[in-house]
């Protein structure tokens, strides 16, 4: 296995050819369609890539060109990617939920002439965007439903493109192999959009060497093999999905599975039982709240059994993450707890086979970590950025410190400069931003150090990330802190979906409630409500959240305790630009839009009103004025009768 790890002059298309020669009948991709997992073998995968590559060549796609893909995760996504790379081109993924303006931005910067789009929804967006995209020549679509009657001459069916490619390639024997052989590791393979919380996304160019050296370094500590399965459900436009699904997938020969529909992701994942997962915190958080809701709906016996099992699992996990071996009695209890209480929960979550899983993209609350380790899921933090292929620092098995992000993976150097910024250097540092030499110069210095823009420090060799360097604040007594740190404390409450913290002297917070958990709590309390807005403004819900904020405050130093909070009347929505598609809060947009609220929080008003424009489905809109309460925690005494709520329950 180690022989194929020395990447040398490897590129993705070369690896695909290797896999197809090694195990032509092994399953490379499978997609659930019509209720059945439809397999695609490595040989079929390679053949399809060749046809589409010929097809793209017949459309004039050349070395150095960028082909865009706009759609959900499907085999066609990867086939298009590998086809473009076989010709010496690169691929840029666009998030399928993107709106017209974002699509135009990415396609313009990438100067894409060919876009591979999924279905009618995406094609409609491109038809609208076409006017502002003079360079766009052809749109290829693969889900034909609803597109039968479209007459635009520049629309081509994926299967027709393959057919066209077969014809084009019929008298060009050996041309494809020659093109693949011409590819070098320093060719750009993937262009990834950086999730811009501050401005329009930048497009980072990643070479084959960047991605494959990352895959080698990662798998040298956490090995993967051809028997491992992976469910691909996060956007392939995201670097994390590219890393594991494509780079590790191709170099280790893993089987990728694509769920049938966004609504069936969970059940499909349970059917597959993946061995490895890499997801941003929101996925883990939503799994935890699902467990909380379902356990709260269970009978008392199940709750009791799970409670006892969880405690034992938690104690065993504490030993395990420190690398200690538990004693024989502990092992026996742990096995018993696993059998009756923890394994069934893992199975329900689709994590029954998981050997390792990762979280990355944003910090995950230590308590969420603790929960997953307690139920026996080996969850580890990854720290990295798109600019360094997503993965640079990682927890090691048996040395998982929840507050840190671990130690650098092999081949990666880490340094903290004088200002406290984290610098990284490795083979995976990206080639540059597309069309912006200046921004590239800001990110990578002459010695090849990537300036991450994050502030952090080392704790016994383990990296602890505070926040974006420009977001690190000083409190009244001089403590360095980050609002993200407080926000994560707040977000650990199952009732809090998002929290945005303001101020340095008087810390205040704007909170959005999680409609699922608060809704189920309200149901349990016989509290009636109509809409999200109504629920969020209930006196009882404020009291509930006050208790949660009070609990979060208990872990915070006095100078940065949350003094006041309000519950926002709506959830933060990427369509409103308030949050990115990877669910990072855009503070500047929030500060702009809710300036009045923030000022009122700062002043300590009793309530504040806001005018909100609601657009109904039929196109009419009305202005509504909503009055939001501001809760002051000064002198707050938590209700006495309540017991401490366990991590796994939303109920007391």
């Amino acid at each position, binding site marked *: 296995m180690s022989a194929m790890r020395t990447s040398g002059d490897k590129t993705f298309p070369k690896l695909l050819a290797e896999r197809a020669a090694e195990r032509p009948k092994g399953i490379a991709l499978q*997609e659930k*369609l*019509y*209720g*059945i997992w*439809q397999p*695609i073998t490595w040989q*079929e995968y390679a053949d*399809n890539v060749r046809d589409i590559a010929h097809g793209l060549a017949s459309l004039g796609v050349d070395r150095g060109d960028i082909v865009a893909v706009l759609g959900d995760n499907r085999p066609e996504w990867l086939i298009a990617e590998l086809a473009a790379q076989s010709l010496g081109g690169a691929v840029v993924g666009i998030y399928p939920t993107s709106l017209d303006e974002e699509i135009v931005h990415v396609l313009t910067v990438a100067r894409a002439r060919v876009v591979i789009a999924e279905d009618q929804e995406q094609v409609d967006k491109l038809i609208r965007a076409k006017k502002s995209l003079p360079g766009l020549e052809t749109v290829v679509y*693969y*889900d*034909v*439903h*609803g597109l*039968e*009657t479209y007459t635009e001459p520049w629309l081509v069916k994926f*299967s027709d493109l*393959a057919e066209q490619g077969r014809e084009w390639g019929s008298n060009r024997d050996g041309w494809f192999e020659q093109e693949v052989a011409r590819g070098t590791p320093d060719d750009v393979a993937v262009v990834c959009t950086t999730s811009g919380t501050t401005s329009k996304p930048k497009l980072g160019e990643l070479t084959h060497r960047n991605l494959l050296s990352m895959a080698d370094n990662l798998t040298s500590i956490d090995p993967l093999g051809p028997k491992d399965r992976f469910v691909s459900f996060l956007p392939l436009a995201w670097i994390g999905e590219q890393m594991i699904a494509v780079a590790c997938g191709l170099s280790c020969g893993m089987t990728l599975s694509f769920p*049938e*529909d966004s*609504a*069936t992701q969970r*059940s499909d994942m349970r059917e597959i039982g993946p061995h490895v997962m890499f997801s941003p915190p929101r996925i883990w958080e939503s799994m935890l709240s699902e467990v909380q809701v379902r356990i709260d709906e269970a009978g008392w016996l199940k709750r009791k059994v799970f409670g006892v099992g969880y405690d034992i699992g938690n104690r065993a996990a504490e030993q395990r993450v420190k690398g200690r071996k538990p004693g024989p009695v502990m092992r026996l209890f742990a096995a018993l707890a696993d059998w009756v209480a923890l394994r069934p929960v893992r199975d329900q979550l689709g994590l029954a086979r998981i050997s390792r899983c990762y979280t990355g993209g944003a910090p995950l609350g230590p308590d969420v970590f603790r929960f997953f380790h307690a139920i026996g899921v080996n969850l580890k933090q990854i720290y990295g950025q798109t600019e360094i292929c997503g993965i640079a620092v990682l927890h090691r098995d048996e040395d998982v410190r929840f507050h840190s992000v671990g130690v650098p993976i092999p081949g990666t150097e880490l340094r903290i400069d004088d200002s406290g910024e984290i610098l990284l250097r490795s083979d995976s540092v990206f080639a540059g931003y597309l069309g912006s030499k200046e921004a590239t110069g800001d990110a990578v210095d002459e010695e090849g150090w990537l300036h991450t823009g994050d502030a952090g420090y080392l704790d016994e060799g383990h990296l602890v990330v505070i926040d974006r360097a420009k977001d690190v604040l000083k409190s009244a007594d001089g403590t360095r802190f980050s609002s993200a740190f407080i926000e994560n404390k707040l977000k650990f409450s199952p009732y809090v979906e998002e929290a945005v913290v303001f101020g340095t002297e008087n810390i205040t917070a704007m909170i959005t409630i999680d409609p699922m958990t608060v809704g189920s709590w309200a149901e349990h309390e016989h509290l009636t409500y109509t809409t999200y807005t109504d629920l969020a403004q209930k006196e009882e819900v404020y009291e509930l959240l006050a208790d949660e904020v009070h609990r979060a405050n208990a872990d915070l130093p006095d100078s940065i305790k949350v003094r006041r909070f309000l519950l926002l009347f709506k959830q933060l929505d990427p369509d409103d630009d308030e949050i990115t598609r990877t669910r990072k809060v855009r503070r500047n947009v929030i500060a702009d839009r809710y300036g009045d609220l923030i000022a009122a929080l700062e002043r300590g008003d009793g309530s504040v009103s806001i005018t909100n424009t609601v657009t109904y*489905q*039929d196109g009419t809109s009305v202005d509504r004025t909503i009055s939001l309460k501001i809760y002051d925690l000064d002198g707050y005494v938590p209700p006495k009768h309540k017991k401490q709520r366990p991590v796994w329950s939303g109920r007391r």
Partner: protein
Amino acid sequence: MLTRAYRFSLNSSRVPTGDPLLEFADVSLRFGGIHALSDISFTVRQGHVHAVIGPNGAGKSSLLNCASGLYRPQRGKILLHTRDEQDAASGHDLAKLRPHRIARLGVARSFQNIELFGHLTVLENLMLGRHIHMRHHLVPALLWFGPARNQEVRHREFVEEVIDLLQLQAFRHHHAGSLAYGIQKRVELGRALAVEPSLLLLDEPMAGMNAEEKEDMARYILDVHELRGVTVMLIEHDMGVVMDISDHISVLDFGKLIGDGTPDEIRNNQAVVEAYLGADA
């Protein structure tokens, strides 16, 4: 490589588009002294979405029940035109046929009040729609081998395309009775489609839905019609929806046909306006 295009045709009628598919000729239905329908005559053409509208008690559901054989009109003919594989035309008077014979001719329907089997899964309910196309011999069916098994696999493939079209994937193995109302309505539409209809009769497919659910349902009906070529005859109350999606409208009032034409003609029909808005409007 798997293809995403559908392999099966949902429409089983071979009548050329625009030709008469179903003709009501002087249909009259009485319940004792009540004239539910009197001398109704109109034509549903192949390839149309044909809406039947009218105030409560106008006789809309009775008309549909006559067409599907649940009621037997005292007078008149309901003529269904079919073409066989050699393109030879023949007519069948539905007023004289038993409901199961009518179903075999490809007339499928959904009900105003959902009539699913609550304790069967969505998949099983849809497979039931294929029942009229299955030919079982007792022994292979009991032992589920050879032809019986192959046959079921083939029909399952058909049903899976219906599931894909109506986006029911997430509910495949859920019990029909446990699903939300809007989903159950969709399952009922799916079961009617699984019949592989020559004519689809929908009795108030959007009753009791909110604006968003109605929009979804309208989208599915249009998909079924436009993309899969199925002729649809539907009863609906929401005028906005009716005007949007139908090619032809027949209006009933107190058992009589008071209007018949395109949406534009109906909008300007004085008798219809009076029936709906009162004589003064």
